[in-house]
């Protein structure tokens, strides 16, 4: 009787291919009932293609679900997901050019957001390079994307973040930048003016640091050797 052995062998084979099978099933299950049926097939195809290219699938699923929740027509959901997949691909290419061989899905998604907000591939690479630990490149890119989306010019956005990082500002300080720009705008400033004010403030000593403090990796000037 070979049936038990065959069944066990089948289980073994299935377990080998389980990650891919589950991934596809997972996407389908998450879209089911949340995305218009006519969009589901297209989104599954886009997601499968993205996965084959090593791109993160989660942002695509989230975007499709968001469109479904908002009652967006199927063709617009497909278009938005396809556009996002394209930006993820561009962001991945920018990461590779920045010397990051296998960026995480969050980083690629942050890069795609930054590209969508108007930053160039070169600016994304620059933000990647400056986001050395303890700074998280994914969060740096997302903050940059939000600043640019608020109307801060892309070049000024990169300069502001570079100044914050070189000044050793905390991750929380970076995350609070969009809110501070928003506050400045609500008080009558343009986004560029609000960002310029924040850039000037970033040059000062961070809260909780002594006046002679210098950011990690920078040399402290000698008082007798200017």
């Amino acid at each position, binding site marked *: 009787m070979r049936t038990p052995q065959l069944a066990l062998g089948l289980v073994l084979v299935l377990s080998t291919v389980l990650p891919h099978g589950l991934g596809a099933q997972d996407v389908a299950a998450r879209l089911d009932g949340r995305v218009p049926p006519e969009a589901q097939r297209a989104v599954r195809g886009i997601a499968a293609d993205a996965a084959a290219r090593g791109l993160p699938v989660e942002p695509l699923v989230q975007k499709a679900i968001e469109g479904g929740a908002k009652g967006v027509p199927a063709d617009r959901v497909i278009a938005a997901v396809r556009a996002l997949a394209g930006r993820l691909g561009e962001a991945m290419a920018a990461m590779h050019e920045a010397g990051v061989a296998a960026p995480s899905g969050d980083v690629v998604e942050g890069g795609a957001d930054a590209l969508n907000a108007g930053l160039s591939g070169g600016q994304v690479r620059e933000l990647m390079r400056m986001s050395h630990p303890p700074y998280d490149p994914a969060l740096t890119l997302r903050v940059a994307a939000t600043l640019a989306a608020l109307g801060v010019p892309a070049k000024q956005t990169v300069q502001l973040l570079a100044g914050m990082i070189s000044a050793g500002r905390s991750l929380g300080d970076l*995350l609070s930048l969009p809110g501070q720009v928003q506050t400045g705008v609500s008080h009558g400033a343009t986004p560029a003016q609000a960002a310029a004010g924040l850039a000037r403030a970033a040059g000062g000593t961070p809260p909780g640091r002594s006046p002679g403090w210098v950011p990690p990796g920078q040399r402290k000037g000698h008082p007798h050797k200017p």
Partner: protein
Amino acid sequence: MITGYHPLVKRLLDGELSLAQLPPELRAEGEEALRLVGAADRAPVALSPAFEERVMAVVRRHAASPGRRAWRWLNAPREVELRLRVRPWAVWAGALAVAAGLVLLLARPAPSPEPRGGTQQAHVGTRDSVLVRFVLFAPGARRVAVAGTFNQWDRSATLLVPAGTSGVWTTTLALPVGQHQYAFVVDGARWVVDPAAPAVADGFGRRNSVVAVTAQGGRVL
């Protein structure tokens, strides 16, 4: 009245002893016991054939009930013999497959609630999450929810609670540190950006609010 016979008298009744073998003081008790036993009518009771037929008819009727038969079939214990012939490598392969399946299931990333907030303060909830308060002024609304990447954009997953009759709706969520997008959903259909939070294009021609959640626990926006 005798309530219990002497053990020797009981042996007399059982035929193990004779009356002569009893001690003289027990012989009267023995004689009385023998007399009472001898007075009993030991003739077999004969039931009428009609009575027996009536009893058996009731028994057959109960036995013929489909429900009772089914119950007996379901309830009756049976002996089951299972014989398997499996080679050792097949057992190990099966165990390996089960273990691999368990590892993959455990390694699957759990759906992570992503923190997003609007006009709120954040306080440290746990090491990796922060309590974020969402507030919307929506006088006249019958129902307000917040949807975002932290709840799979579910319009009914996170409802806000009205603060009295002032038109202010609030809720507090534990969200992880980071930057997140969200929108309010008024009366189940109208998507509203948070007027106190930055907003970005959502790719569908509308806008999403953005909240940055920091671990410091201070005001985030």
